[in-house]
């Protein structure tokens, strides 16, 4: 495919997320877009980064897009594979630089829900997957980057269940709870990128994608988004070269980066 289409929202997320990775870092990869971002970074600006998966896989050779965090592509010619308990232990012990995770709901303090939507624990609208490694990574990772689509259903005032702690109720509450990981440093969405204001630990606009106004971003959120002082930067978009690599080499079947019809 040699189409010159600009990046679709999912491709944009994958690109922006990949930019969070510095060469040489160890990144713990959740399922979905984090896999795309990790592989894209490795094929572009961060060839010496190491991907780690909860199934225990370490540093696979680049190949096909994984269909699962336990699939063969996540341990393709890995020099070694750790048991699950030891794999998470790497986070606690300081060997992982960043973790990438998705969310079903997220609140202004970066608390994440992947458990259930609507109602309560027994009488919900939809039960979701549960934690998997989401809580472990959020609890332990030195820095955490959360990634997903943005809508008022996903950016909510209160998550229906705290699967994974962000900054809990803000301020020092995360630290006081005894959590050793640093908490979320960024949220990458279809509208923009966000960080957390250092005192209150509330989510703050860091940049907005081309064509997205602060008003539009706010419309797609169930809580008030803090704004930075001064002008809001526009997120830089991928070059055509990078889009080509993403489409041809990273996710050619569009498993994670084709828009749902």
């Amino acid at each position, binding site marked *: 495919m040699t189409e010159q289409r600009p990046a679709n929202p999912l491709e944009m997320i994958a690109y922006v997320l990949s930019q969070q990775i510095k060469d040489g870092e160890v990144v713990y990869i959740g399922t979905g877009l984090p896999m795309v971002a990790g592989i894209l970074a490795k094929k572009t600006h961060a060839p010496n980064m190491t991907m780690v998966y909860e199934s225990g896989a370490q540093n696979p050779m680049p190949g096909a897009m994984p269909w699962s965090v336990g699939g063969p592509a996540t341990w393709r010619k890995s020099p070694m594979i750790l048991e699950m308990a030891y794999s998470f232990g790497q986070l606690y012990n300081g060997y992982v630089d960043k973790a990438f995770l998705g969310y079903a709901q997220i609140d202004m303090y970066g608390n994440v829900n992947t458990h259930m939507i609507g109602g309560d624990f027994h009488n919900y609208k939809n039960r979701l*997957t549960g*934690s998997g490694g989401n809580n472990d990574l959020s609890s332990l990772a030195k820095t955490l980057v959360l990634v997903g689509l943005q809508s008022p259903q996903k950016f909510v005032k209160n998550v229906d269940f705290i699967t994974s702690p962000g900054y809990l109720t803000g301020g020092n509450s995360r630290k006081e709870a005894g959590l050793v990981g640093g908490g979320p440093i960024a949220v990458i969405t279809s509208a923009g990128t966000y960080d957390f204001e250092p005192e209150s630990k509330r989510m703050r606009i860091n940049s907005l994608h081309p064509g997205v106004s602060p008003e539009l971003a706010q419309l797609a959120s169930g809580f008030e988004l803090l704004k930075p002082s001064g002008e809001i930067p526009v997120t830089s978009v991928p070059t055509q070269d990078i889009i080509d690599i993403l489409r041809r080499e990273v996710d050619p079947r569009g498993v994670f980066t084709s828009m749902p019809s």
Partner: protein
Amino acid sequence: MGKFTYNKEVLANLRIDEKETHLLDKLLDYESAKEAHSKKSHAAVDKRISIKEAINEYVKDGDILTDTGFSYVRTPIAAYFEIIRQGIKGLQNIGSPATSQSYMIPFGTVTHTHWSYCGAEMRGTDRNMSRCAKNGKTKVLSEWSHGSMAQGFKAAQLGVPGLYSKQLLGSDIIKYNPFVRQVDNPIKAEKDPCVFIPALYPDVTIIHVHQADKFGNAKIYGPIVNDVAIAAAARKVIITAEEIVPPSAFRNDNKGVVIPFVYVDAVVEMPYGALMGSMPGLYYWPRRLWEKAMRHWTYKEGAMDEFYETFIVNCKDQYDIIDKLLGGSKWLANSRRLTKAEEYDNEDEGVDFNYKEWTRDDPNPDDTTDQFKAIY
């Protein structure tokens, strides 16, 4: 007074009556696990039996069954189908992930759930599981994260009563788990909240491996996940193996031999025992079959009856799955080729991973063969 103290608030959150706490006790009961481990034959004897005999002998109504492998990677799914086939009822299921319990619930095989993850990642959330937990077909006894549950199994393998974790703090998971307890690190001068994770002792586990000898020493290629710890913890251990090798094979080359024979009660020769999932190095994930499972069989109330017809009644074993659902010998050849190419043990240049995804308006909904064409 019972053997263990459970947080009353957590029991109330989970709607577990105090009279029901015996359902929780066995998972923590070190004494009975140790007794079970002590009682089994410790001699290296030939433990080979059939899968029918193994399930009949070692899986009992009400047991805590552990899921192994990683959902659809090296998971003994064909053995789980045999559990359903034999009409065993009232199992508790635990594992991280514990995805396989979903299809055992509608038939009363599994009635109690320890939950860390159920679903098939991007293939979709598991609506059957969502429905069954809501309508009481299964009762959730505890919520976990992968890592915290892995620590519970690992504590059992290490031979300690439990360990202190830094996971689950500040989350709602801890409010829905009667087994874990927030405590302070006793050696720190400053207040240091931790979560005590007790050693976990499931009743029975089935672990699918690449090779075993007749005594039960077992070799795994690819991710071990939690299986070595689970094998050490479980009261009863069934090994299903793609092939049985002579004991001399492991004496000559012990690379990848991770389960010692003393843990093992039964050894079953079971080629393709991970179907309808995949097996590292040997066969690839049947993608359309799984997509149909997530998007059709689990989707609507009652559709799981069709799942039962397909896998339990119309297929008597994993060979029938290959012949009747996947496309027979061509599937075998292609799935080995795909997995080896993805693992880069075969040349991958020119190997076509494309297939037609199974969708809800699929023109050929009964075709679950992955419609591979590249091989011929």
